[in-house]
Structure formats: C-alpha cells, structure tokens
C-alpha cells in the first residue's frame, strides 16, 4: 500500500509537530482506500493525552478517538491511519511504537521534528504478524484546493 497525501496535508502534519515541540503531537488520517493506496481526505489533529512523558510518548484519549471515528462515519470517511511526531528523533518506528500499534491495515505516519523544525516524514504499515513495520511509499496527491 502507498499513502496519498496532498502537499497541504503533509504540511499540516509537519506544522502540528512543530507546534507541539518539544512534545509529541498526534492525529488521525481520514479518507478511503483505493487501488493500492490509502488516500487521505483530512488530517485531524488530536490532543496528546499523555501527561507523564509527552516528550517521547503520546496517547489518544479513547473517547475523543470514538468521537472522531463517529464524525468520520457520518461524513462517509474512514479512519485510514494515524500520525505522531518524534521530537529530536528519526521518523521511524520505535520498539514502543511496535508494541503499541493497533492492527495491520492502517498507515502509521511519523514526522521527525529536529530542534523545533519538522524534518523527514515517513509512513509505515504493520506486518501481518505484527513483528515489524514496513515503510510504505508516500505519493503526493493533487491539492484539494486547486481546480
């Protein structure tokens, strides 16, 4: 699977990572699955509910996640993935990310934020046996705001 993002959506994730720095940001990717790609329709920033160690941990509040899932359904969109930032750390999954991943079939996007500036942004999917993440291609979709 590839992940299709517009330049604006890519920038929105990067901006959220910069705004949250030095804490981790997190959010939901809404959209749908097409032929060989998950296509993002909307990036929904979420609150990092982890108050103990927000510089290197994030949690969704489950009720807020339920609400986003419900609102997406009402608008004909699906939850196709999630994103979070790694402040001052590379944009690749940690062992902790692996241990706390949900199911295969989502895109797991990570943006690295180095000294407050967003750097690499990568997307991964979880292997079927949950043993590791596999990097997936990110392709740029046409901007939604262009004619």
């Amino acid at each position, binding site marked *: 699977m590839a992940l299709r993002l517009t330049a604006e959506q890519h920038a929105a994730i990067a901006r959220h990572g910069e705004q949250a720095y*030095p804490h*981790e940001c*997190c959010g939901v990717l809404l959209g749908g*699955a097409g032929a060989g790609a998950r296509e993002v329709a909307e990036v929904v920033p979420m609150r990092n509910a*982890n108050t103990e*160690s927000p*510089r*290197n*941990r*994030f*949690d*969704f509040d*489950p*009720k807020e*996640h*339920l609400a986003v*899932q*419900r609102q997406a*359904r009402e608008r004909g969109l*699906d*939850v*196709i993935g*999630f994103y*979070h930032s*790694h*402040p*001052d*750390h*590379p*944009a*690749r*999954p*940690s*062992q*902790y*990310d*692996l241990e*706390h*991943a*949900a*199911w*295969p*079939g*989502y895109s*797991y996007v990570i943006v*690295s934020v*180095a*000294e407050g500036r967003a*750097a*690499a942004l*990568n997307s*991964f999917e979880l292997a079927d046996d949950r043993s*590791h*993440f*596999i*990097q997936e291609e990110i392709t740029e979709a046409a901007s939604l705001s262009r004619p």
Partner: protein
Amino acid sequence: MPIKVFIPTPLRSYADKQAAVEVDGRDVGEVLERLVAAHPQLKSQLFTPEGKLRSFVNVYLNDEDIRYTGRERTPVKTSDTLSIVPSIAGGAPRAFGREAALLPSSRPAEARC
C-alpha cells in the same frame, strides 16, 4: 435482539467488507461471541488466544467504555450500538537532543524494530 456493531476500517476485510454488522445478543459478551462466530477471522484480531479482549481493543456501548459498565456482562438493547476502538499510543525512544536528531531518518524499504 440485534444491535449494530461498527467494524474498524482494517478489520472490514474479515467481515465481508461491511462497515457495520447486525448481531444478536443479550449482553456485550454474547454479541462479541456471535460476531466472531459469524466472521471467524475477526477472532484473533479482537481476542488473545486465551479468549480475552486484546489490550489495545476498547469496546464502547454507545458512549460508554464497557470496562466501566460491567465489561462483557453489560446488557444491550436493540437501539444500542457497539463501537470497537483501538487504543492509539506510541512514541520515540528515550533519547533526546542533537545526538538523537542526527541519527539516520529512514531506511529505504523496511524498518525492523
């Protein structure tokens, strides 16, 4: 009495590609049992081999997390909806500062952890 169970996006391929299914049951446990009986591939996605809900699987009856309403014994009625919501958490390793930032940012094909 059937209630509507909403299926998370990646699990729909195990439920005949349906976003929601109607399942009979008197309580949440019975609904979940019948859900996985009708769609056996869902079982290992939702339950451990010991038959417990996986730690990252949250189940909401309407707006309430069943952990606070009686877990699987929570009774259901026809107008109820059941939502399966994964816990989403993660985070970077415990290294901060310049040194961590200078590590390579990605690997070309596969990141084994």
